[in-house]
């Protein structure tokens, strides 16, 4: 652009000058928060600071600063080209225009999509995404600090208010689709692990609170949880939401709070029955060979990294539970006998049976 005189001082010989400078960040999640972003650009540690003063009054190097996402800037040329009337044709009242999403997860056609605001989740998942192979379970909207919505929200329209009312956010525009192979507690743990690591460490609720949530979730996935933990999660989540300094902290408990709300039963199963219905939580599951079904094909013997499965060819194999690291390899490979079904199964709730 500079070559063509479209950027720099005196653009196209006018008295209008404009510069673009691209500054690479070091990749901290918290630097998506505007004040941390400013700090990062200033060469300081990417740590949010309190507002007011808002960046529009005192931002980068103390000067008034406007912060926009690339997506926002990306829509500008179209609006300028086609006019505001054209743009407001899209979307619904109060939520005009379109939004891009990154549609991923257990879906047939993952990818980047752009939809009108107000489209239902069902349309996005089943029409655009082509549906889910296994039964649909949940969708995480808004990235790691968004909320996890259950099947009953499939007809929810995607707009800022509806998502907020369901306890989630539009956030970064991430849509992660999950089927019944996903354990909801594990999911919450995964996101909390992320936000906990990415917390800048400045304010107490975010730094310490997320750590405690993670510890509790860890306990639950290991079958050591107690019913009181659910209340503790709730209190912690509320404290962090109310007390945290920046957007990261204020939204970090979302995955926990929404899953607690919509998938409470799964938490209770982990705590009371010590079962993980998605067979994800390793402490709650055990791998076994079903002697009647096993053909002795030795596929599993080959893939087992610890040598836990033994047995001569054509005879039912043995699985030594003490050596098994629950890596799931044998389960994945055991497809030999299509009629008889999988010879290697994952059982949960062994403690009780």
């Amino acid at each position, binding site marked *: 652009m500079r070559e063509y005189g479209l950027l720099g001082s005196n653009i196209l010989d006018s008295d209008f000058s404009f510069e673009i400078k691209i500054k690479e960040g070091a990749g901290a999640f918290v630097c998506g928060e505007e004040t941390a972003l400013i700090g990062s650009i200033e060469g300081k540690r990417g740590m949010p600071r*309190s507002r007011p003063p808002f960046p529009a009054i005192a931002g980068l190097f103390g000067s008034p600063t406007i912060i926009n996402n690339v997506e926002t800037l990306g829509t500008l040329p179209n609006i300028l080209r086609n006019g505001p009337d054209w743009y407001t044709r899209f979307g619904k009242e109060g939520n005009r225009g379109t939004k891009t999403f990154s549609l991923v997860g257990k879906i047939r056609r993952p990818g980047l999509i752009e939809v009108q605001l107000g489209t239902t989740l069902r349309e996005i998942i089943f029409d655009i995404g082509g549906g889910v192979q296994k039964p649909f379970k949940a969708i995480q909207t808004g990235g790691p600090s968004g909320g996890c919505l259950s099947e009953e929200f499939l007809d929810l329209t995607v707009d800022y208010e509806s998502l907020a009312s369901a306890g989630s956010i539009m956030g970064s525009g991430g849509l992660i689709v999950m089927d019944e192979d996903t354990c909801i507690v594990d999911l919450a743990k995964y996101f909390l692990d992320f936000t906990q690591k990415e917390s800048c*460490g400045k*304010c107490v*609720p975010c*730094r*310490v609170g997320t750590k405690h949530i993670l*510890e509790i979730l860890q306990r639950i996935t290991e079958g050591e949880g107690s019913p009181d933990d659910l209340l503790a999660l709730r209190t912690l989540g509320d404290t962090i939401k*109310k*007390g945290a*300094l920046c957007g990261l902290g204020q939204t970090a408990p979302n995955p926990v709070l929404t899953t607690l709300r919509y998938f409470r039963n799964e938490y209770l199963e982990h705590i009371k029955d010590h079962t993980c219905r998605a067979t994800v939580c390793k402490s709650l599951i055990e791998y076994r060979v079903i002697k009647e079904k096993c053909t002795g094909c030795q596929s599993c013997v080959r893939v087992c990294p610890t040598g836990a499965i033994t047995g001569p060819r054509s005879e039912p194999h043995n699985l030594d539970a003490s050596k098994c690291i629950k890596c799931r390899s044998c389960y994945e490979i055991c497809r030999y006998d299509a009629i008889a079904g999988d010879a290697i199964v994952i059982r949960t709730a062994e403690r009780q049976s």
Partner: protein
Amino acid sequence: MTKEKKVSITIDNRKVEAKAKTTILQAARDNNIDIPSLCALEHLPSYGACRLCVVEVDGIRGFPTSCTTPVEDGMVIRTDTAEVRTLRQEVLKLLLSEHPASCLFCEEQTDCKNFQGTIRKVGVTTGCRYCPNDDMCELQEVTKKVGLTETSYPVYYRNFPVEKEDPFYDRDYNLCLLCGRCVRVCNDVRLNGTLSFKQRGKMTTIGPAFGRSHLEAGCEFCGACVAVCPTGALSAKASKWSGKPDEVVESTCPYCPIGCTLDLKVKAGEVVDVSADYDSPTEHGLICVKGRFAIPEYVLSPDRLARPTILKPEGYDFLPWEEALDEAAAKLKAAGPKNTFVVVSPQLSNEDLFVAQRFAREVIGTEAILSSVIFDLGSDLRSFVDLVVMSEQIDTIEETKGILTIGLDTTYGFTPLGIAVKKAAKKGAILVTVSEHECNLDMLSEEAFQSDAAKWPEFMDGIMKSMSGNGTRKSKAAAPLFKKGDRNVVIIGPDAVFSGKRKEIFERVLAMRDNLGWKVIVCHPYTNLMGMLAMGALPGLKPGGLKSDGVLKLKDPAGVVDLKQNRKVGYFIGEAPSPEMPKCEYLIYENALPAPSGFDPNLILPAGLFTESPGTTISSEGKILTFNRASAPFAESKPDWWIISGIAARMKKGALKYSSLAAIQSEIKKSIPGFSGKERRVPRKKVVMEGKAAAAGNPFGPCRDAAAPAAFRGVPLHDHVAGMKAIEERRHK
């Protein structure tokens, strides 16, 4: 004066006035409404990390922190609603789960203290009773204020190793709340930038970047971080286990002529710790390592001279004061005025100096009142005194456009001045540093010249020439930086004062001052040099040397007395003998700590130190400052003036009959200008040389050409203060 803008706000249904632009927290505190808080602290920029000062404000979503939210007219604030209280308690619970605070909720509370003989000094702090900061901890106070009586979260001990490698203070980051006070004071107040946050999430901790030690990272060891730490995470090694001080005594730092105000913390009759006074007008609390950490260990040194001692053929032997004074008087009297000299320390108080010079002149009858200043500076004394007397105040620096520092490094001394330079440079003043090695001000300088001191005069010539229009090639880079007519200041550091080229440097600085209007500040170690001038403690200079018209008439000491003549008796008052000084057959040594090896005093008279015997000193700005008594005299030591008067009374009936400090002070008030006025400031206007100068060049052989290690009363600090050794080593690297 314009009236400060006020806004009216409502806090907890009370209509109150608040200064515009202040924070809600400050406004509440000004109106005696207490909001608990840990990370906010006066003099530090607000931060908003602890989240304890949350309040509710009409029109603001959620729970804003009062320490970061500025007040606005008509604001309605609630500080104590049920929701706010719950949130505070929850946040504090989280905070305490990172801090080993089992004692806070222990039923026995302080009962265990009865059995605490040995368990307190454990390596790992697991609760308040095992913490050096017990009873002084802000977290304990806040817990009480917030009303937390139990916690529901497990405590995570973070298992950081306790850092003890650096001198002066230990760091146990397992106790750290990450309130960021230390980081802010280091970066925003001290402008030093040693400390920063490291890592993120639960791994977040504090320290210098890249895993360096504090010493390597350029820490000034000003101890500001230790002072602001609300917990026991940072603690001074020397005073770590002394507990809450019994009283705090305001005094003055005796280590350099800046004269910082110090708060001496006294425990069980001993000065155990020192803190800065941020409201002090001179240095604004920006004290250096010497004032902060080198006092308790010096005054409480196990080597302190306890009793009068005499050298006998079979060795040293104690003797009572009466006999010691008799002995001193007899020896001095026997030798007579021609065969005696007195050496005073420039670090004595005004009162001691006044009595000492009267003693020399009236009792002994000699002008041989010698001091290290004379021997260190030799024939350059006159220009040195000229520059020192006319030294500007530190505040001058902030308003200048150009700053030139010569041989100055303010890492371990003159920090208030260094920070003022940094502030000015940040504000846009042009800073040029000239030094032999890298110095701490280089970072902010426009140009940093590192060269042998021999080249400095030439460099200064270049600057002067460029200012008058003919820039030479050599200093072209720096030449156009300073403009005539601008407010410029040149600061001469100890490396310049004690360089072989000081004569030439002084000449040029004087020319810059007199011809080009530069302001001058001299950094030197002679604490009470101004007092010596005012009291007349130099050969040929009478008391009241700084006359009320501000003119100081100075004689060349070498022209008044023979400085090289060895004499029979030498009386050293608060000073240690050095090789340059004349020799004596009988050495009377009056000091608080032993003389360096190689000199065996014949008579040792233990003197009190500034923490024990009060007095006054005059700062380089001419202010009269006070040393206040903080502790009882050490063992049998006596104030210098008491010892001198005692000897005087034995030599000459009725001479120097001082029974108290007040008697000396009233005499000083009568005879020395500046002491009687309200302003407490000595006049200074002009220095003129009186009489003939002694032969050109230095009459005492090679003068001192390297800055000596920091010393007090002739005794190097690093001999008695453990941490100063590391500092001196680093300085000479």
